[in-house]
């Protein structure tokens, strides 16, 4: 690469403001967080740094032996395992339908389907709380019309997480829908023509052409959505405050409580890093799974 002095200087100068911000306020804290997770940083250390003790892996041991951590991890896993397929399924269904040549008013429908994505989470969480109100909520009223007894959606520990999952799917499906639409547009039309000549049915076409063609996009979307869903926080914070019976405490909610409510910053940092490792491991697992599946089909 031929580099002229002036150009190189300009390059560094142009990149500098962003790089400095990212290094100082993201890079440094990440490493500091790792160090923090190895100390007993708490409210006493916050008042006077001399109270700070180095304590190795103790925080990690404490996190992994904490019943509430396992409960939070279980709740988060529940949210991910049900929420990710539901969200992606709805996104894909909407994208496939919207892609059809038979659809009229396409731009209008697309905008309507996408609108929840840009809304403010806290505000729409408030709406859902009233929609799912046990007594005056429209959801229970509608169900009653179908002869189903009222459900205490956010007050019953069995229903609280499913309600949050429904909410998350409604709020988020539009984003992946747009990505799927683009991927579907890139599938060559001749493939469908050929399949039709071969007499393939709609379902077979969908499985062997559509799904096979968009598999890389599907994997990427799954990884990004999974990583995002592991970071569940604002939904339970606004809708249930982690309750009832801690059924909606997520890992990040636990980190927030430990860190900013009880000021156990060392322990909370350990929670954050455990969550990070879990996200990395699950992403790697998904990639390996995809290789296996596509290898088996090839």
């Amino acid at each position, binding site marked *: *690469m031929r*580099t*002229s002095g002036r*150009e*190189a*200087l*300009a390059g*560094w100068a*142009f*990149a500098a*403001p*962003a*790089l400095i*911000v*990212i290094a100082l*306020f*993201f890079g440094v*804290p*990440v490493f*500091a*967080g790792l160090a*923090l997770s190895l100390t007993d940083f708490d409210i006493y250390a916050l008042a006077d740094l001399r109270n700070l003790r180095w304590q190795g892996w103790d925080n990690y041991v404490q996190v992994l032996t904490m019943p509430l951590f396992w409960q939070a991890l279980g709740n988060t896993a529940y949210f991910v395992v049900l929420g990710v397929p539901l969200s992606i399924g709805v996104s894909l269904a909407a994208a496939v*339908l*919207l892609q*059809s040549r*038979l*659809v009229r008013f396409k731009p209008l*429908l697309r905008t*309507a*389907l*996408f*609108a*929840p994505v*840009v*809304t*403010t*989470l*806290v*505000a*729409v969480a*408030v*709406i859902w709380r*009233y929609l799912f109100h046990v*007594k*005056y909520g*429209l959801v229970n009223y509608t169900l009653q019309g179908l002869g189903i007894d009222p459900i205490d959606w956010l007050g019953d520990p069995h229903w609280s997480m499913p309600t949050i999952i429904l909410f998350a799917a*409604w709020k988020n499906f539009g*984003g992946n829908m*747009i990505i799927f639409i683009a991927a579907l547009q890139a599938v060559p039309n001749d493939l469908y023509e050929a399949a039709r000549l071969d007499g393939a049915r709609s379902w077979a076409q969908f499985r062997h052409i559509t799904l096979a063609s968009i598999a890389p996009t599907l994997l*990427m979307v799954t990884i990004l959505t999974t990583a995002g869903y592991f970071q569940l*926080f*604002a939904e339970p*914070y606004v809708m249930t405050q982690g309750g009832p019976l801690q059924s909606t405490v997520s890992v990040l909610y636990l*980190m927030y409580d430990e*860190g*900013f409510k009880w000021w156990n910053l060392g322990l*909370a940092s350990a929670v*954050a890093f455990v969550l990070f490792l879990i*996200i990395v491991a699950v*992403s790697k697992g998904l990639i390996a799974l995809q290789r296996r599946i596509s290898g088996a089909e090839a």
Partner: protein
Amino acid sequence: MKPRAALVNGLLWVFAALAIFPLVWMVCVSLMPAGSASSLPPPLLPADPTLVHYQKLLGDGGLKRAFVNSLGLAVVSTLVSVSFNTLAGYAFAKLRFRHRERVFGLLVAALVIPGQVAMLPLFLMLKGMGLVNTWMGVLIPSMAGIFGIFLVRQYARGVPDELLEAARLDGAGEWRIFWNIVLPTLKPVLVTLAVFAFLGSWNDFMWPLIVLTDGEMHTLPVALAALSREHVQDSELMMAGAVITVLPVLVLFVALQRYYMQGLLMGSVK
């Protein structure tokens, strides 16, 4: 083929209605007099519409303060982050300097680290710098973003090198080349970036919740969350609060959705 078209269209309209319904319902309830939404059967349309909740919320002590705070923060963070990300994105795309690819590779690798990992230490750092409970403190993490740099870089790679070389031969400085030649061609991606930055700042919840402890400085989402804990029973008032929070971003999105969706797509073709 006819029934099939009806099925596809019908399904889509049902989907779209489900997506939009909570938002329409929010507006309807916000116009009802206090207490009237809590009756059976739950009313769908306001019998006698009133703006009383909006008057209350936009008067003193309501959400007016929070609205101004949110707007100011969103505007400033949009201006700063668009400037920083555009400069850096262009540098990584077009300016040749040593270690460029290595630094960029590091940035991309850092994309996998969730922001929450940095949150606690960043809070302590800002506390040490006296920036907790200040506007600067909320703005700092949003001043530059790896995703934004990535978007601009993708786009700026399309600028022909010959154009830049010709300008250099004419003796133009790097800043002038950027300002006069590159920036105009980047306009679409700048709008995309701005929409993302504005929405991101407006909708952000966790960081302002942590950094801004003073009620006077709360942003709309934080103020709304606090309000909803106090006024659990006042559904009509809360709906008006939700409308005030959501409407500005919805309008912005509908006006600029082309750019927003483009950004989403560019980000997904890594």
